[in-house]
């Protein structure tokens, strides 16, 4: 008994009480084996499912599941080896067909066998955790056929060969290939990937490497891109027809890499057909294609964007620094607007309104517009031209479009305060000469500027409009209270508030008697109603309409400047006058007088005065008389010189100087504001903060900021720290 204790009890599998004849199991298995043979030989029609099912069931029931399972595997393996030989023997084109045919047969057979062995599948296999019948069948196929050494490589090569043929233009049997790739997928994703997909991708990579090299040597950029696109579409199509969907991304990556990524630089920079050429020639289709292809690869779009940016900057720089182009400001600005429109269109049509491209374009424009220091002046002149005559007869909506475009250019300016100065000047001239096309357009632009720059920018401008309006009312009042003046010359006065209008020195001049009397009357009227104010006549800004009768009786109405009026009126009393006499009588300063006489005597078609000698310049010894032979088609002749023009060099210098002067207090105000809140700040930080604050108006010069700091220190607004020279402190 003690011996028994050491013996291990072994748990054996259940044994049925009823002992089954072992021969019974063999007999049953033979029946099933025969049936499997018949199934593989396409001879299954006579078989009874019931009977076979029952046989398999009984085997499992009586614990012969092992025998059944191993028998099934052995039988199937034997058949598959046979089939494998048949497939190997197939010649040429029929190899793939044979494989496909046998694969279909195998699937049918496997299904039937699985049905027969269903009970075993659900019980014996479940408990022994062996592979189920169907997956087992697939593995057997895989091991004995697909991975059989004679078939494995040949199959792969056949498939790759077909793909290659199709790529070179031949037609292949796509359905057949699809069945084979589907077979790979059925055998397992790793089988598909290892036995087909990876080699396929490698072969494709080689193929496209070669092809792209060929193309790039022989095609221009646009052509190459067309071909690349075509290949890409083809490959996607190929996947749809006979590859697994998961391969799509992988194959497109291959094409993208070989055809695009590897040749990116060369394509973009190609002579006479690359990006720059496309941009210059508005090749929207080519540009769009390039965009769509390049966005698929890393840094593709960045490359395109960079080339576009450098081209734009280069071109813009040439445009603004070319002296030829700067001759006519209106044309200059129009050119800028055209370029802006061009790139807008390119970005919206070909680049899908891509924000990064828009930003690149904007920064380029900003860069080169500011390379020309006269850009603010020119833009103002452009606006002036439009508001004077360019917008005549154009619908309101279109007017808005033009003004919006101008605003766009305005935003690019770094020196917005320069623009403001010029704009004020030009506006003043427009208002005073009554030469604006549309009040609404003017007001609309002011509103836009206010939205962009804030109230301070436009408050003075608005003041100018107010003055004009008020003056109308004043005039009405004046003539209302002096009815006797309705006979005789009509005086129209615009009273300008000094702060709002561009400062002009008051130029003295002797007005003709008729006029000066009226002026005095007005002065007393005005000061009567507005005590505490001072009026000074701006004779350099006025205009006059004079009726003139010439020698042969020609009657004309001349529209002239105030100075010109003074000069002309002198000839009522004298026939001939010398320069000196005119100068003395009118007291007009020499440069203005010379210009005035030039416009009266030397301009063809407007020479109401004759000059001796007939030279172009006004000399101090010249003599003048009325040109009795003066003719003109029109009754009304305009001779005024108040049109806004591009400034001459000296004038430009002057304006620039005034702008610099104006900037000083603004810089100081910014410094004080910043120091008041920060109390202590170091030099570099002050510079940075001040620049940032003033950026909406102009680009502050660090040297100038330094000077202003020094000045503020002198005036005890700030002090330097005793220990650290770079640190400043605010003094309350």
């Amino acid at each position, binding site marked *: *008994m003690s011996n*028994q204790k050491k013996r291990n*009890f072994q*748990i*054996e599998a*259940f*044994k*049925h*009480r009823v002992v089954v004849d072992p021969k019974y199991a063999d007999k049953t298995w033979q029946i099933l084996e025969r049936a499997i043979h018949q199934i593989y030989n396409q001879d299954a*029609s006579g*078989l*009874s*499912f*019931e009977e076979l*099912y*029952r046989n398999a*069931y009984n085997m499992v*029931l009586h614990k012969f599941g092992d025998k059944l399972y191993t028998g099934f595997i052995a039988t199937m393996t034997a058949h598959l080896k046979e089939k494998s030989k048949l497939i190997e023997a197939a010649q040429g084109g029929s190899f793939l067909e044979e494989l496909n045919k046998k694969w279909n047969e195998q699937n049918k057979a496997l299904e*039937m066998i699985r*049905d027969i062995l*269903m*009970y075993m599948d*659900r019980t014996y296999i479940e408990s022994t955790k062996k592979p189920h019948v169907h997956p087992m069948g697939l593995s057997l196929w895989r091991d004995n056929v697909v991975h059989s050494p004679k078939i494995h490589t040949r199959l792969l090569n056949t498939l790759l060969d077909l793909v290659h043929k199709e790529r070179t233009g031949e037609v292949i049997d796509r359905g057949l290939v699809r069945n084979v790739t589907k077979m790979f997928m059925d055998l397992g994703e790793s089988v598909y990937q290892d036995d087909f997909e990876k080699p396929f991708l490698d072969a494709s990579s080689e193929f496209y490497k070669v092809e792209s090299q060929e193309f790039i040597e022989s095609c221009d950029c646009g052509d190459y891109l067309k071909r690349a696109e075509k290949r890409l579409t083809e490959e996607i199509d190929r996947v749809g027809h006979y590859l697994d969907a998961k391969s799509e991304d992988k194959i497109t990556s291959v094409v993208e890499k070989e055809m695009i990524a590897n040749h990116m630089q060369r394509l973009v920079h190609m002579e006479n057909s690359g990006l720059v050429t496309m941009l210059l020639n508005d090749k929207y289709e080519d540009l769009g294609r390039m965009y769509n292809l390049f966005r698929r690869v890393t840094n593709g779009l960045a490359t395109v964007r960079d080339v576009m940016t450098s081209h734009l900057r280069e071109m813009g720089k040439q445009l603004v620094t070319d002296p030829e182009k700067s001759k006519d400001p209106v044309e200059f600005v129009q050119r800028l607007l055209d370029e802006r429109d061009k790139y807008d269109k390119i970005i919206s049509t070909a680049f899908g309104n891509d924000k990064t491209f828009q930003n690149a374009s904007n920064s380029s424009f900003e860069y080169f517009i500011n390379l020309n220091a006269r850009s603010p002046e020119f833009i103002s002149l452009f606006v002036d031209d439009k508001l004077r005559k360019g917008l005549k007869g154009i619908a309101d909506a279109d007017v808005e479009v033009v003004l919006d475009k101008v605003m766009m250019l305005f935003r690019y300016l770094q020196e917005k305060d320069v623009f403001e100065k010029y704009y004020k000047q030009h506006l003043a001239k427009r208002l005073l000469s009554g030469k604006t096309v549309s009040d609404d357009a003017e007001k609309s632009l002011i509103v836009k500027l206010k939205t962009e720059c804030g109230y301070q920018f436009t408050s003075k401008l608005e003041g100018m409009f107010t003055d004009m309006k008020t003056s109308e009312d004043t005039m009405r009042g004046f003539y209302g209270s002096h009815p006797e003046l309705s006979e005789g010359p009509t005086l129209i006065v615009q009273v300008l508030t000094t702060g709002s209008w561009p400062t002009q020195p008051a130029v003295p001049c002797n007005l003709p008697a008729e006029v000066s009397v009226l002026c005095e009357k007005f002065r007393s009227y005005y000061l009567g109603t507005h005590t505490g104010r001072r009026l000074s006549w701006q004779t350099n800004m006025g205009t006059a309409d004079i009726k003139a009768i010439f020698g042969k009786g020609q009657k004309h109405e001349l529209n002239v400047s105030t100075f010109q009026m003074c000069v002309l009126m002198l000839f009522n009393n004298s026939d001939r006058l010398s320069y000196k006499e005119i100068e003395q009588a009118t007291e007009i300063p020499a440069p203005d007088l010379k210009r005035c006489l030039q416009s009266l005597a030397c301009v063809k078609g407007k020479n109401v005065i004759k000059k001796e000698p007939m030279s172009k310049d006004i000399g101090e010894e010249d003599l003048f008389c009325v040109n009795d032979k003066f003719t003109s088609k029109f009754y009304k002749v305009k001779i005024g010189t108040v049109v806004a023009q591009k400034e001459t060099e000296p004038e430009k210098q002057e304006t620039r100087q005034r702008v610099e002067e104006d900037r000083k207090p603004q810089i100081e105000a910014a410094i004080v504001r910043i120091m008041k809140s920060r109390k202590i700040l170091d030099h570099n930080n002050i510079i940075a903060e001040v620049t940032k604050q003033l950026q909406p108006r102009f680009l502050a010069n660090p040297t100038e900021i330094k000077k202003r700091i020094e000045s503020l220190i002198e005036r005890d607004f700030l002090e330097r720290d005793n220990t650290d020279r770079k640190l400043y402190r605010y003094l309350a």
Partner: protein
Amino acid sequence: MATDVSSSGFAKILKQKWHTDLLLKAGDSNGFAAISAHKLVNAARSEVFKKMLESKATKASSDQTLFFSEMRHEELETLVKFMYNDHGLVSSSKLKKHVRSLYLAAQRYEIPHLRDLCRNELISSLSSSNALDELSQVPLDKPLTDAVLSFIARNINTFLDSCEFKMFVARNPNLAVEITKAFLNPVMIPSQSNMSLMMIMMMMMTMTTKIR
């Protein structure tokens, strides 16, 4: 439990023999008429039936016939009634009477619901007299086996004294071990049962020695 369900749903169609296309015969059907049924309903209830019915090419003229040689007519009838029952139920009297063969049929033909029904019936009718028989029956699925084992284990005392048990152990040493395992596993063993355990072990050893 539904009483007379033969008047509604599928059962109605069966009774009326409306468009039947299948004949079912049991092993002793020579004395009885074949049962008329519908391929569709039977295929729906059992995967195996479905395969059986689809693998044969239908001869258009006569109805297909299926033979169930291992079943008796009454059992087959009960089975068919189950297939047609809307709620998947069997009349309890019939169930009690034919539970064994229905259980086997459910196993063989993959009718899980029926198998569960039968199993529950078998479990609930376990007694000291039939438990050992049950255990040695075949085939048993795991839930049923476990249920029987734990029943025996719970009532081990009743078994230990019976000579039936001794004979059983002699003939089925492996089953005895299974009983021991079941006994040891689920519940805390009261001291009294320790003795019983010892007795089983001793009995087993004596028996095995005897056989040897």
